[in-house]
Protein backbone atom coordinates (compact mmCIF):
# COMPACT_ATOMS: atom_id res chain seq x y z
CA UNK A 1 0.00 0.00 0.00
CA UNK A 2 2.79 2.37 0.93
CA UNK A 3 4.80 1.40 -2.10
CA UNK A 4 1.73 2.04 -4.19
CA UNK A 5 1.40 5.51 -2.72
CA UNK A 6 5.04 6.23 -3.35
CA UNK A 7 4.73 5.10 -6.90
CA UNK A 8 1.78 7.37 -7.65
CA UNK A 9 3.68 10.26 -6.09
CA UNK A 10 6.72 9.59 -8.23
CA UNK A 11 4.55 9.15 -11.25
CA UNK A 12 2.96 12.51 -10.56
CA UNK A 13 6.34 14.24 -10.36
CA UNK A 14 7.49 12.38 -13.44
CA UNK A 15 4.57 13.57 -15.54
CA UNK A 16 4.62 17.01 -13.93
CA UNK A 17 8.20 17.52 -15.01
CA UNK A 18 7.57 16.22 -18.52
CA UNK A 19 4.62 18.58 -19.01
CA UNK A 20 5.66 21.55 -21.08
CA UNK A 21 2.67 23.72 -20.17
CA UNK A 22 3.30 23.24 -16.49
CA UNK A 23 6.97 24.10 -16.87
CA UNK A 24 6.31 27.29 -18.83
CA UNK A 25 3.53 28.42 -16.50
CA UNK A 26 5.52 27.87 -13.33
CA UNK A 27 8.59 29.50 -14.82
CA UNK A 28 6.68 32.72 -15.63
CA UNK A 29 5.05 32.74 -12.20
CA UNK A 30 8.35 32.26 -10.39
CA UNK A 31 9.96 34.99 -12.45
CA UNK A 32 7.34 37.56 -11.44
CA UNK A 33 7.26 36.42 -7.83
CA UNK A 34 11.01 36.92 -7.69
CA UNK A 35 10.68 40.32 -9.35
CA UNK A 36 8.02 41.36 -6.84
CA UNK A 37 10.33 40.36 -3.98
CA UNK A 38 13.63 41.82 -5.10
CA UNK A 39 12.35 44.45 -7.55
CA UNK A 40 11.92 47.28 -5.05
CA UNK A 41 15.57 46.88 -4.00
CA UNK A 42 16.75 47.21 -7.59
CA UNK A 43 15.61 50.79 -7.89
CA UNK A 44 16.68 53.69 -5.73
CA UNK A 45 13.56 55.72 -6.48
CA UNK A 46 10.38 56.11 -4.49
CA UNK A 47 7.43 55.19 -6.74
CA UNK A 48 5.72 58.54 -6.17
CA UNK A 49 8.76 60.85 -6.03
CA UNK A 50 9.43 63.21 -8.92
CA UNK A 51 12.91 62.08 -9.81
CA UNK A 52 13.50 62.69 -13.48
CA UNK A 53 12.52 64.62 -16.56
CA UNK A 54 8.78 64.18 -17.27
CA UNK A 55 7.53 61.90 -20.04
CA UNK A 56 10.88 60.54 -21.13
CA UNK A 57 11.27 57.10 -22.66
CA UNK A 58 13.23 54.17 -21.26
CA UNK A 59 16.86 54.96 -20.56
CA UNK A 60 19.75 53.58 -18.60
CA UNK A 61 18.76 55.59 -15.57
CA UNK A 62 15.01 54.97 -15.83
CA UNK A 63 14.60 51.47 -17.23
CA UNK A 64 10.91 51.83 -18.03
CA UNK A 65 11.03 55.60 -18.62
CA UNK A 66 9.19 58.19 -16.55
CA UNK A 67 5.59 59.30 -16.14
CA UNK A 68 4.02 62.57 -17.16
CA UNK A 69 5.30 64.01 -13.88
CA UNK A 70 8.78 62.51 -13.92
CA UNK A 71 8.15 59.54 -11.65
CA UNK A 72 10.09 56.35 -12.31
CA UNK A 73 7.81 53.83 -14.09
CA UNK A 74 9.97 50.83 -13.19
CA UNK A 75 9.76 51.69 -9.52
CA UNK A 76 5.96 52.01 -9.73
CA UNK A 77 5.85 48.75 -11.65
CA UNK A 78 7.77 46.63 -9.15
CA UNK A 79 5.95 48.14 -6.21
CA UNK A 80 2.65 47.60 -8.00
CA UNK A 81 3.50 43.95 -8.57
CA UNK A 82 3.32 43.03 -4.90
CA UNK A 83 -0.37 43.76 -4.33
CA UNK A 84 -1.14 41.68 -7.43
CA UNK A 85 0.09 38.59 -5.61
CA UNK A 86 -1.38 39.72 -2.32
CA UNK A 87 -4.88 40.27 -3.68
CA UNK A 88 -4.62 37.19 -5.90
CA UNK A 89 -3.58 34.90 -3.06
CA UNK A 90 -5.90 36.32 -0.40
CA UNK A 91 -8.90 37.03 -2.61
CA UNK A 92 -8.52 33.81 -4.57
CA UNK A 93 -7.86 31.85 -1.38
CA UNK A 94 -10.89 33.26 0.38
CA UNK A 95 -13.13 32.59 -2.61
CA UNK A 96 -11.84 29.01 -2.80
CA UNK A 97 -12.38 28.53 0.91
CA UNK A 98 -15.94 29.88 0.97
CA UNK A 99 -16.86 28.02 -2.20
CA UNK A 100 -15.38 24.76 -0.93
CA UNK A 101 -17.08 24.92 2.45
CA UNK A 102 -20.47 25.76 0.96
CA UNK A 103 -19.99 23.12 -1.73
CA UNK A 104 -19.05 20.44 0.81
CA UNK A 105 -22.00 21.18 3.07
CA UNK A 106 -24.53 21.44 0.26
CA UNK A 107 -23.24 18.35 -1.49
CA UNK A 108 -22.85 16.20 1.60
CA UNK A 109 -25.93 17.20 3.55
CA UNK A 110 -28.41 17.37 0.73
CA UNK A 111 -32.05 18.03 1.57
CA UNK A 112 -33.28 21.48 2.47
CA UNK A 113 -29.83 22.72 3.49
CA UNK A 114 -28.66 21.95 -0.02
CA UNK A 115 -31.76 23.60 -1.44
CA UNK A 116 -31.05 26.84 0.43
CA UNK A 117 -27.32 26.91 -0.22
CA UNK A 118 -27.84 26.04 -3.87
CA UNK A 119 -30.33 28.86 -4.31
CA UNK A 120 -27.97 31.27 -2.59
CA UNK A 121 -25.14 30.13 -4.84
CA UNK A 122 -27.23 30.57 -7.95
CA UNK A 123 -28.35 34.02 -6.88
CA UNK A 124 -24.84 35.27 -6.17
CA UNK A 125 -23.73 33.57 -9.38
CA UNK A 126 -25.96 35.70 -11.59
CA UNK A 127 -25.22 38.97 -9.80
CA UNK A 128 -22.39 40.51 -11.78
CA UNK A 129 -19.40 40.64 -9.46
CA UNK A 130 -18.31 44.03 -10.68
CA UNK A 131 -21.68 45.61 -10.00
CA UNK A 132 -21.61 44.31 -6.45
CA UNK A 133 -18.04 45.42 -5.89
CA UNK A 134 -18.89 48.74 -7.46
CA UNK A 135 -21.58 49.59 -4.98
CA UNK A 136 -19.64 48.17 -2.03
CA UNK A 137 -16.49 50.06 -2.90
CA UNK A 138 -18.29 53.27 -3.80
CA UNK A 139 -20.14 53.58 -0.53
CA UNK A 140 -17.96 51.86 1.99
CA UNK A 141 -14.63 52.80 0.50
CA UNK A 142 -11.63 50.55 0.14
CA UNK A 143 -8.71 51.53 2.27
CA UNK A 144 -6.26 48.69 1.77
CA UNK A 145 -5.45 45.87 -0.59
CA UNK A 146 -6.47 43.48 2.12
CA UNK A 147 -10.03 44.89 2.22
CA UNK A 148 -10.11 44.69 -1.55
CA UNK A 149 -9.10 41.03 -1.37
CA UNK A 150 -11.86 40.36 1.15
CA UNK A 151 -14.46 42.01 -1.08
CA UNK A 152 -13.30 40.02 -4.08
CA UNK A 153 -13.21 36.78 -2.13
CA UNK A 154 -16.74 37.29 -0.88
CA UNK A 155 -18.16 37.72 -4.38
CA UNK A 156 -16.18 35.23 -6.47
CA UNK A 157 -16.99 31.95 -4.74
CA UNK A 158 -20.24 30.75 -6.40
CA UNK A 159 -18.90 28.75 -9.34
CA UNK A 160 -16.51 27.01 -7.00
CA UNK A 161 -19.33 26.11 -4.64
CA UNK A 162 -21.28 24.68 -7.54
CA UNK A 163 -18.39 22.60 -8.83
CA UNK A 164 -17.40 21.33 -5.37
CA UNK A 165 -21.00 20.47 -4.61
CA UNK A 166 -21.27 18.32 -7.72
CA UNK A 167 -17.98 16.55 -6.95
CA UNK A 168 -18.95 15.96 -3.34
CA UNK A 169 -22.24 14.44 -4.40
CA UNK A 170 -20.53 11.96 -6.67
CA UNK A 171 -17.91 11.08 -4.06
CA UNK A 172 -20.59 10.68 -1.43
CA UNK A 173 -22.07 7.82 -3.40
CA UNK A 174 -18.79 5.90 -3.36
CA UNK A 175 -18.15 2.87 -1.21
CA UNK A 176 -15.43 4.16 1.06
CA UNK A 177 -17.63 7.04 2.16
CA UNK A 178 -20.47 4.64 2.86
CA UNK A 179 -18.08 2.55 4.89
CA UNK A 180 -17.03 5.54 6.95
CA UNK A 181 -20.64 6.50 7.52
CA UNK A 182 -21.63 3.01 8.63
CA UNK A 183 -18.71 2.96 11.04
CA UNK A 184 -20.27 5.97 12.73
CA UNK A 185 -17.82 8.65 11.72
CA UNK A 186 -19.02 12.23 12.11
CA UNK A 187 -19.95 14.20 9.00
CA UNK A 188 -17.25 16.82 9.48
CA UNK A 189 -14.67 14.11 9.86
CA UNK A 190 -15.88 12.24 6.81
CA UNK A 191 -15.66 15.40 4.75
CA UNK A 192 -12.19 16.23 6.04
CA UNK A 193 -10.66 12.75 5.97
CA UNK A 194 -12.50 10.91 3.21
CA UNK A 195 -13.85 13.43 0.74
CA UNK A 196 -11.48 16.40 0.78
CA UNK A 197 -8.28 14.38 0.18
CA UNK A 198 -9.86 12.82 -2.88
CA UNK A 199 -10.58 16.26 -4.27
CA UNK A 200 -7.28 17.83 -3.38
CA UNK A 201 -5.95 17.98 -6.91
CA UNK A 202 -9.20 19.53 -8.04
CA UNK A 203 -9.14 22.13 -5.26
CA UNK A 204 -5.61 23.12 -6.19
CA UNK A 205 -6.80 23.80 -9.71
CA UNK A 206 -9.79 25.76 -8.44
CA UNK A 207 -7.49 27.92 -6.34
CA UNK A 208 -5.29 28.65 -9.34
CA UNK A 209 -8.29 29.79 -11.38
CA UNK A 210 -9.60 31.88 -8.49
CA UNK A 211 -6.14 33.40 -8.11
CA UNK A 212 -6.20 34.54 -11.74
CA UNK A 213 -9.77 35.76 -11.47
CA UNK A 214 -8.98 37.81 -8.38
CA UNK A 215 -6.05 39.47 -10.15
CA UNK A 216 -8.25 40.47 -13.08
CA UNK A 217 -11.04 41.69 -10.80
CA UNK A 218 -8.65 43.78 -8.74
CA UNK A 219 -7.13 45.32 -11.85
CA UNK A 220 -10.59 46.22 -13.12
CA UNK A 221 -11.56 47.84 -9.83
CA UNK A 222 -8.31 49.77 -9.62
CA UNK A 223 -8.73 50.89 -13.18
CA UNK A 224 -12.18 52.40 -12.70
CA UNK A 225 -11.02 54.23 -9.60
CA UNK A 226 -12.38 51.94 -6.89
CA UNK A 227 -9.03 50.58 -5.80
CA UNK A 228 -7.41 51.10 -2.42
CA UNK A 229 -6.91 54.73 -1.55
CA UNK A 230 -3.31 54.12 -0.58
CA UNK A 231 -0.57 52.27 -2.40
CA UNK A 232 0.16 51.53 -6.02
CA UNK A 233 -1.02 48.70 -8.22
CA UNK A 234 -0.75 47.74 -11.86
CA UNK A 235 -4.40 48.58 -12.46
CA UNK A 236 -3.93 52.00 -10.89
CA UNK A 237 -0.90 52.64 -13.11
CA UNK A 238 -3.05 52.04 -16.17
CA UNK A 239 -5.76 54.34 -14.84
CA UNK A 240 -3.32 57.18 -14.19
CA UNK A 241 -1.61 56.67 -17.53
CA UNK A 242 -4.92 56.86 -19.38
CA UNK A 243 -6.13 59.81 -17.30
CA UNK A 244 -3.04 61.88 -18.00
CA UNK A 245 -2.99 61.34 -21.72
CA UNK A 246 -0.33 58.66 -22.12
CA UNK A 247 -2.30 57.45 -25.14
CA UNK A 248 -2.36 60.54 -27.36
CA UNK A 249 1.20 61.32 -26.29
CA UNK A 250 2.28 57.82 -27.29
CA UNK A 251 3.97 57.08 -23.94
CA UNK A 252 3.82 53.31 -24.48
CA UNK A 253 6.39 52.59 -21.76
CA UNK A 254 3.88 53.78 -19.22
CA UNK A 255 0.93 51.57 -20.08
CA UNK A 256 2.49 48.50 -21.71
CA UNK A 257 4.34 46.95 -18.72
CA UNK A 258 1.43 46.81 -16.23
CA UNK A 259 -1.11 45.33 -18.66
CA UNK A 260 1.34 42.96 -20.28
CA UNK A 261 2.40 41.67 -16.88
CA UNK A 262 -1.17 40.99 -15.79
CA UNK A 263 -1.87 39.19 -19.05
CA UNK A 264 1.30 37.10 -18.71
CA UNK A 265 0.65 36.29 -15.07
CA UNK A 266 -2.96 35.30 -15.50
CA UNK A 267 -2.12 33.46 -18.72
CA UNK A 268 0.63 31.58 -16.89
CA UNK A 269 -1.86 30.63 -14.17
CA UNK A 270 -4.31 29.30 -16.76
CA UNK A 271 -1.61 27.32 -18.54
CA UNK A 272 -0.36 25.90 -15.24
CA UNK A 273 -3.93 24.83 -14.59
CA UNK A 274 -4.21 23.04 -17.93
CA UNK A 275 -0.84 21.42 -17.32
CA UNK A 276 -1.92 20.18 -13.90
CA UNK A 277 -5.17 18.90 -15.37
CA UNK A 278 -3.18 16.84 -17.86
CA UNK A 279 -0.96 15.50 -15.12
CA UNK A 280 -3.88 14.57 -12.87
CA UNK A 281 -6.09 13.14 -15.64
CA UNK A 282 -4.14 10.52 -17.57
CA UNK A 283 -6.81 10.55 -20.28
CA UNK A 284 -5.78 14.02 -21.41
CA UNK A 285 -2.09 13.26 -21.50
CA UNK A 286 -2.21 11.96 -25.03
CA UNK A 287 0.95 10.35 -26.32
Amino acid sequence: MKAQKNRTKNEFLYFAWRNKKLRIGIFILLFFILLAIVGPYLTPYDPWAYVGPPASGPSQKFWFGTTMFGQDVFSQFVHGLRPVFLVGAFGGGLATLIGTVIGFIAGYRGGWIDEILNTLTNVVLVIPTLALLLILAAYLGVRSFFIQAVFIGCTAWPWTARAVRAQTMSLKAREFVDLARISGMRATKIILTEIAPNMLSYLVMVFILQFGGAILNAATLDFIGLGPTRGISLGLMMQIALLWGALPLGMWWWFIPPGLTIALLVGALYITNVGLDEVFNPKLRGI
Partner: protein
Amino acid sequence: MWRYLGRKFTIYVLTFFLAVTIDWVIPRFMPGNPVQTMLSRAALRAEAVEVMRGYYLKAFGLDVPIWQQYLNFWKAVFRGDLGISVYLFPKPVMKVIAEAIPYTLAILVPAILLSWLAGNKFGAFAARRKWLDSTLLPLGYFLTATPYMWLGILLAWGFGVALGWFPIAGGYSFAMTPHFSWKFVLDLLWHWFLPFASLFLVMFGGWAIGMRNMIIYELEADYAQYLESLGAPRRLIRNYAFHNALLPQITGLALQMGTIAAGAVVTETVFSYPGIGSLIVQAIQNQDYFLIQGCFLFIIIGVLLANFLVDIAYLIVDPRTRRGMLGET
Protein backbone atom coordinates in the same frame (compact mmCIF):
# COMPACT_ATOMS: atom_id res chain seq x y z
CA MET B 1 -39.18 22.07 -19.18
CA TRP B 2 -41.55 24.28 -17.24
CA ARG B 3 -39.96 23.14 -14.03
CA TYR B 4 -36.58 24.12 -15.35
CA LEU B 5 -37.81 27.54 -16.43
CA GLY B 6 -39.68 27.96 -13.16
CA ARG B 7 -36.57 27.27 -11.11
CA LYS B 8 -34.54 29.66 -13.18
CA PHE B 9 -37.21 32.31 -12.93
CA THR B 10 -37.36 31.99 -9.14
CA ILE B 11 -33.62 32.57 -9.01
CA TYR B 12 -33.93 35.68 -11.16
CA VAL B 13 -36.75 37.14 -9.11
CA LEU B 14 -34.80 36.47 -5.91
CA THR B 15 -31.71 38.02 -7.41
CA PHE B 16 -33.57 41.12 -8.47
CA PHE B 17 -35.11 41.41 -5.05
CA LEU B 18 -31.69 41.04 -3.42
CA ALA B 19 -30.14 43.57 -5.78
CA VAL B 20 -32.75 46.22 -5.04
CA THR B 21 -32.34 45.55 -1.34
CA ILE B 22 -28.57 45.93 -1.56
CA ASP B 23 -29.11 49.11 -3.49
CA TRP B 24 -31.24 50.39 -0.61
CA VAL B 25 -29.16 49.05 2.30
CA ILE B 26 -25.60 49.88 1.31
CA PRO B 27 -25.95 53.71 1.31
CA ARG B 28 -27.40 53.47 4.81
CA PHE B 29 -24.24 51.70 5.96
CA MET B 30 -22.14 54.63 4.91
CA PRO B 31 -20.21 55.95 7.88
CA GLY B 32 -21.57 59.20 9.40
CA ASN B 33 -24.63 61.03 8.09
CA PRO B 34 -24.97 59.75 4.53
CA VAL B 35 -26.82 62.78 3.21
CA GLN B 36 -24.25 65.19 4.59
CA THR B 37 -21.37 63.04 3.36
CA MET B 38 -22.80 62.74 -0.12
CA LEU B 39 -23.46 66.44 -0.35
CA SER B 40 -20.01 67.40 0.85
CA ARG B 41 -18.29 64.91 -1.41
CA ALA B 42 -20.17 65.91 -4.52
CA ALA B 43 -18.80 68.94 -6.30
CA LEU B 44 -22.01 70.90 -6.54
CA ARG B 45 -22.79 74.38 -7.57
CA ALA B 46 -24.19 76.48 -4.75
CA GLU B 47 -27.75 76.67 -6.07
CA ALA B 48 -27.82 72.90 -6.52
CA VAL B 49 -26.84 72.09 -2.95
CA GLU B 50 -30.18 73.02 -1.46
CA VAL B 51 -32.16 71.28 -4.20
CA MET B 52 -30.09 68.14 -3.75
CA ARG B 53 -30.36 68.23 0.02
CA GLY B 54 -34.11 68.33 -0.31
CA TYR B 55 -34.00 65.57 -2.84
CA TYR B 56 -31.71 63.34 -0.84
CA LEU B 57 -33.80 63.79 2.28
CA LYS B 58 -36.92 62.90 0.37
CA ALA B 59 -35.26 59.96 -1.34
CA PHE B 60 -33.86 58.58 1.85
CA GLY B 61 -37.12 59.47 3.57
CA LEU B 62 -35.39 59.47 6.92
CA ASP B 63 -38.42 60.89 8.68
CA VAL B 64 -40.56 57.77 8.22
CA PRO B 65 -40.10 54.30 9.81
CA ILE B 66 -37.48 52.07 8.27
CA TRP B 67 -39.90 49.60 6.65
CA GLN B 68 -41.74 52.53 5.11
CA GLN B 69 -38.46 53.78 3.68
CA TYR B 70 -37.85 50.38 2.16
CA LEU B 71 -41.34 50.20 0.65
CA ASN B 72 -41.03 53.71 -0.73
CA PHE B 73 -37.76 52.72 -2.35
CA TRP B 74 -39.48 49.83 -4.13
CA LYS B 75 -42.28 52.10 -5.29
CA ALA B 76 -39.74 54.52 -6.69
CA VAL B 77 -37.92 51.73 -8.51
CA PHE B 78 -41.15 50.59 -10.17
CA ARG B 79 -41.98 54.15 -11.17
CA GLY B 80 -38.54 54.34 -12.78
CA ASP B 81 -37.59 57.12 -10.40
CA LEU B 82 -33.92 56.58 -9.65
CA GLY B 83 -33.20 60.07 -8.46
CA ILE B 84 -31.38 63.00 -10.01
CA SER B 85 -27.86 62.93 -11.29
CA VAL B 86 -25.54 65.28 -9.47
CA TYR B 87 -22.92 65.74 -12.06
CA LEU B 88 -25.40 66.15 -14.89
CA PHE B 89 -27.69 68.16 -12.63
CA PRO B 90 -30.67 68.36 -12.96
CA LYS B 91 -31.13 65.44 -15.37
CA PRO B 92 -32.95 62.43 -13.88
CA VAL B 93 -30.76 59.34 -13.57
CA MET B 94 -33.24 57.35 -15.62
CA LYS B 95 -32.83 59.67 -18.56
CA VAL B 96 -29.05 59.73 -18.33
CA ILE B 97 -28.97 55.96 -18.38
CA ALA B 98 -31.48 55.66 -21.19
CA GLU B 99 -29.27 57.82 -23.37
CA ALA B 100 -26.21 55.71 -22.65
CA ILE B 101 -27.75 52.27 -23.08
CA PRO B 102 -27.87 52.16 -26.91
CA TYR B 103 -24.11 52.72 -27.10
CA THR B 104 -23.36 49.95 -24.64
CA LEU B 105 -25.66 47.52 -26.40
CA ALA B 106 -24.18 48.47 -29.76
CA ILE B 107 -20.73 47.25 -28.81
CA LEU B 108 -21.72 44.55 -26.37
CA VAL B 109 -24.33 42.53 -28.25
CA PRO B 110 -22.40 42.08 -31.51
CA ALA B 111 -19.18 41.44 -29.60
CA ILE B 112 -20.79 38.71 -27.47
CA LEU B 113 -22.61 36.98 -30.31
CA LEU B 114 -19.86 37.18 -32.90
CA SER B 115 -17.06 36.21 -30.53
CA TRP B 116 -19.10 33.27 -29.29
CA LEU B 117 -19.84 32.03 -32.79
CA ALA B 118 -16.38 32.65 -34.18
CA GLY B 119 -14.57 31.42 -31.09
CA ASN B 120 -16.50 28.16 -31.00
CA LYS B 121 -16.05 27.54 -34.72
CA PHE B 122 -12.38 28.28 -34.57
CA GLY B 123 -11.75 26.33 -31.38
CA ALA B 124 -13.50 23.28 -32.82
CA PHE B 125 -11.56 23.61 -36.02
CA ALA B 126 -8.23 23.85 -34.25
CA ALA B 127 -8.77 20.97 -31.83
CA ARG B 128 -6.66 17.93 -32.69
CA ARG B 129 -5.01 19.71 -35.60
CA LYS B 130 -1.46 19.83 -34.54
CA TRP B 131 -0.09 22.99 -36.05
CA LEU B 132 -3.15 25.18 -35.47
CA ASP B 133 -3.63 23.81 -32.00
CA SER B 134 -0.15 24.65 -30.88
CA THR B 135 -0.50 28.24 -32.10
CA LEU B 136 -4.04 28.73 -30.92
CA LEU B 137 -3.46 27.51 -27.42
CA PRO B 138 -0.92 30.09 -26.21
CA LEU B 139 -2.61 32.88 -28.16
CA GLY B 140 -6.03 32.01 -26.78
CA TYR B 141 -4.82 31.81 -23.21
CA PHE B 142 -3.01 35.09 -23.58
CA LEU B 143 -6.09 36.81 -25.02
CA THR B 144 -8.44 35.50 -22.36
CA ALA B 145 -5.97 36.45 -19.63
CA THR B 146 -5.62 39.98 -20.99
CA PRO B 147 -7.36 42.65 -18.94
CA TYR B 148 -10.04 44.18 -21.17
CA MET B 149 -8.76 47.70 -20.61
CA TRP B 150 -5.25 46.84 -21.60
CA LEU B 151 -6.20 45.34 -24.94
CA GLY B 152 -8.36 48.44 -25.48
CA ILE B 153 -5.41 50.70 -24.68
CA LEU B 154 -3.16 48.69 -27.01
CA LEU B 155 -5.63 48.88 -29.91
CA ALA B 156 -6.25 52.57 -29.33
CA TRP B 157 -2.53 53.20 -29.29
CA GLY B 158 -1.72 51.02 -32.31
CA PHE B 159 -4.63 51.76 -34.65
CA GLY B 160 -5.64 55.11 -33.22
CA VAL B 161 -2.48 56.98 -32.25
CA ALA B 162 0.34 55.27 -34.14
CA LEU B 163 -1.46 54.45 -37.40
CA GLY B 164 -4.19 57.05 -37.07
CA TRP B 165 -6.84 54.86 -38.72
CA PHE B 166 -9.46 55.13 -36.02
CA PRO B 167 -10.50 57.75 -33.49
CA ILE B 168 -9.59 56.94 -29.90
CA ALA B 169 -12.37 58.71 -28.05
CA GLY B 170 -16.09 59.37 -28.16
CA GLY B 171 -19.13 57.81 -29.77
CA TYR B 172 -19.09 60.24 -32.71
CA SER B 173 -17.05 63.23 -33.85
CA PHE B 174 -17.26 66.35 -31.71
CA ALA B 175 -18.03 68.44 -34.74
CA MET B 176 -21.21 66.52 -35.45
CA THR B 177 -24.61 66.55 -33.88
CA PRO B 178 -26.58 63.34 -33.84
CA HIS B 179 -28.90 63.15 -36.82
CA PHE B 180 -29.83 60.54 -39.35
CA SER B 181 -27.61 60.63 -42.38
CA TRP B 182 -25.14 58.25 -43.99
CA LYS B 183 -22.35 60.49 -42.98
CA PHE B 184 -23.29 60.33 -39.34
CA VAL B 185 -23.90 56.58 -39.38
CA LEU B 186 -20.47 56.03 -40.92
CA ASP B 187 -18.98 58.27 -38.28
CA LEU B 188 -20.72 56.23 -35.59
CA LEU B 189 -19.39 52.98 -37.06
CA TRP B 190 -15.91 54.44 -37.30
CA HIS B 191 -15.95 55.23 -33.58
CA TRP B 192 -17.65 51.95 -32.80
CA PHE B 193 -15.07 49.69 -34.35
CA LEU B 194 -12.16 49.72 -31.88
CA PRO B 195 -14.17 49.28 -28.66
CA PHE B 196 -16.07 46.50 -30.36
CA ALA B 197 -12.91 44.84 -31.65
CA SER B 198 -11.24 44.99 -28.27
CA LEU B 199 -14.17 43.32 -26.50
CA PHE B 200 -14.48 40.82 -29.32
CA LEU B 201 -10.85 39.72 -29.17
CA VAL B 202 -10.66 39.08 -25.43
CA MET B 203 -13.88 37.08 -25.49
CA PHE B 204 -12.88 35.26 -28.67
CA GLY B 205 -9.80 33.87 -26.95
CA GLY B 206 -11.91 32.52 -24.10
CA TRP B 207 -14.50 30.82 -26.29
CA ALA B 208 -11.91 29.32 -28.62
CA ILE B 209 -9.98 27.81 -25.71
CA GLY B 210 -13.16 26.58 -24.06
CA MET B 211 -14.42 24.89 -27.20
CA ARG B 212 -11.05 23.37 -27.96
CA ASN B 213 -10.90 21.77 -24.52
CA MET B 214 -14.54 20.67 -24.60
CA ILE B 215 -14.30 19.05 -27.99
CA ILE B 216 -11.25 17.05 -26.97
CA TYR B 217 -13.28 15.67 -24.07
CA GLU B 218 -16.18 14.93 -26.43
CA LEU B 219 -14.01 13.18 -29.00
CA GLU B 220 -12.91 10.83 -26.22
CA ALA B 221 -16.50 10.17 -25.19
CA ASP B 222 -18.02 6.74 -25.64
CA TYR B 223 -20.44 7.73 -28.36
CA ALA B 224 -17.59 9.14 -30.45
CA GLN B 225 -15.57 5.95 -30.04
CA TYR B 226 -18.56 3.87 -31.04
CA LEU B 227 -19.19 5.93 -34.15
CA GLU B 228 -15.57 5.53 -35.10
CA SER B 229 -15.81 1.76 -34.58
CA LEU B 230 -18.72 1.75 -37.00
CA GLY B 231 -16.57 3.49 -39.57
CA ALA B 232 -18.38 6.81 -39.42
CA PRO B 233 -16.49 9.56 -41.22
CA ARG B 234 -14.48 12.01 -39.16
CA ARG B 235 -16.76 14.81 -40.25
CA LEU B 236 -19.84 13.22 -38.71
CA ILE B 237 -18.07 12.51 -35.43
CA ARG B 238 -16.73 16.03 -35.19
CA ASN B 239 -20.18 17.37 -35.97
CA TYR B 240 -21.72 15.44 -33.11
CA ALA B 241 -18.89 16.39 -30.77
CA PHE B 242 -19.24 20.04 -31.75
CA HIS B 243 -22.96 20.05 -31.12
CA ASN B 244 -22.54 18.43 -27.71
CA ALA B 245 -19.64 20.68 -26.77
CA LEU B 246 -21.80 23.71 -27.52
CA LEU B 247 -24.05 22.92 -24.56
CA PRO B 248 -21.50 23.73 -21.85
CA GLN B 249 -20.42 26.70 -23.93
CA ILE B 250 -23.96 28.07 -23.75
CA THR B 251 -23.96 27.63 -19.98
CA GLY B 252 -20.56 29.31 -20.00
CA LEU B 253 -22.07 32.28 -21.78
CA ALA B 254 -24.49 32.77 -18.90
CA LEU B 255 -21.73 32.36 -16.32
CA GLN B 256 -19.52 34.84 -18.13
CA MET B 257 -22.14 37.55 -18.38
CA GLY B 258 -20.90 39.38 -15.26
CA THR B 259 -17.29 39.37 -16.43
CA ILE B 260 -18.37 40.53 -19.85
CA ALA B 261 -20.31 43.43 -18.32
CA ALA B 262 -17.20 44.39 -16.38
CA GLY B 263 -15.19 44.19 -19.59
CA ALA B 264 -17.61 46.52 -21.31
CA VAL B 265 -17.33 49.05 -18.48
CA VAL B 266 -13.55 49.34 -18.69
CA THR B 267 -13.46 49.18 -22.48
CA GLU B 268 -15.87 52.09 -22.73
CA THR B 269 -13.72 53.96 -20.24
CA VAL B 270 -10.62 53.52 -22.37
CA PHE B 271 -12.37 54.85 -25.47
CA SER B 272 -14.52 57.41 -23.62
CA TYR B 273 -17.37 55.66 -25.38
CA PRO B 274 -20.63 57.24 -24.18
CA GLY B 275 -22.22 54.08 -22.75
CA ILE B 276 -23.08 52.90 -19.25
CA GLY B 277 -19.44 52.05 -18.51
CA SER B 278 -18.14 55.55 -19.03
CA LEU B 279 -21.11 56.79 -17.09
CA ILE B 280 -20.17 54.64 -14.10
CA VAL B 281 -16.62 55.89 -14.04
CA GLN B 282 -17.78 59.49 -14.26
CA ALA B 283 -20.30 58.84 -11.54
CA ILE B 284 -17.56 57.42 -9.33
CA GLN B 285 -15.21 60.28 -10.00
CA ASN B 286 -17.93 62.81 -9.24
CA GLN B 287 -19.32 60.88 -6.28
CA ASP B 288 -22.69 60.85 -8.00
CA TYR B 289 -24.37 58.27 -5.77
CA PHE B 290 -27.80 58.15 -7.38
CA LEU B 291 -26.15 57.54 -10.72
CA ILE B 292 -23.97 54.75 -9.29
CA GLN B 293 -27.02 53.09 -7.79
CA GLY B 294 -28.92 53.44 -11.05
CA CYS B 295 -26.10 51.93 -13.09
CA PHE B 296 -25.84 49.08 -10.59
CA LEU B 297 -29.53 48.25 -11.05
CA PHE B 298 -29.31 48.47 -14.81
CA ILE B 299 -26.30 46.18 -15.05
CA ILE B 300 -28.12 43.62 -12.95
CA ILE B 301 -31.29 43.84 -14.98
CA GLY B 302 -29.24 43.50 -18.16
CA VAL B 303 -27.39 40.46 -16.89
CA LEU B 304 -30.60 38.83 -15.68
CA LEU B 305 -32.26 39.36 -19.05
CA ALA B 306 -29.24 37.96 -20.84
CA ASN B 307 -29.28 34.93 -18.56
CA PHE B 308 -32.91 34.37 -19.36
CA LEU B 309 -32.22 34.47 -23.08
CA VAL B 310 -29.40 31.99 -22.64
CA ASP B 311 -31.76 29.66 -20.78
CA ILE B 312 -34.18 29.73 -23.66
CA ALA B 313 -31.38 29.00 -26.09
CA TYR B 314 -30.28 26.09 -23.92
CA LEU B 315 -33.77 24.65 -23.91
CA ILE B 316 -33.85 24.76 -27.68
CA VAL B 317 -30.51 22.98 -28.06
CA ASP B 318 -30.55 20.38 -25.29
CA PRO B 319 -33.26 17.73 -25.53
CA ARG B 320 -32.52 16.44 -22.03
CA THR B 321 -33.51 19.71 -20.40
CA ARG B 322 -36.41 20.14 -22.75
CA ARG B 323 -37.83 16.75 -21.89
CA GLY B 324 -37.35 17.42 -18.21
CA MET B 325 -34.78 14.72 -17.59
CA LEU B 326 -32.41 17.09 -15.86
CA GLY B 327 -33.89 18.98 -12.97
CA GLU B 328 -30.53 20.55 -12.31
CA THR B 329 -30.46 24.32 -12.51
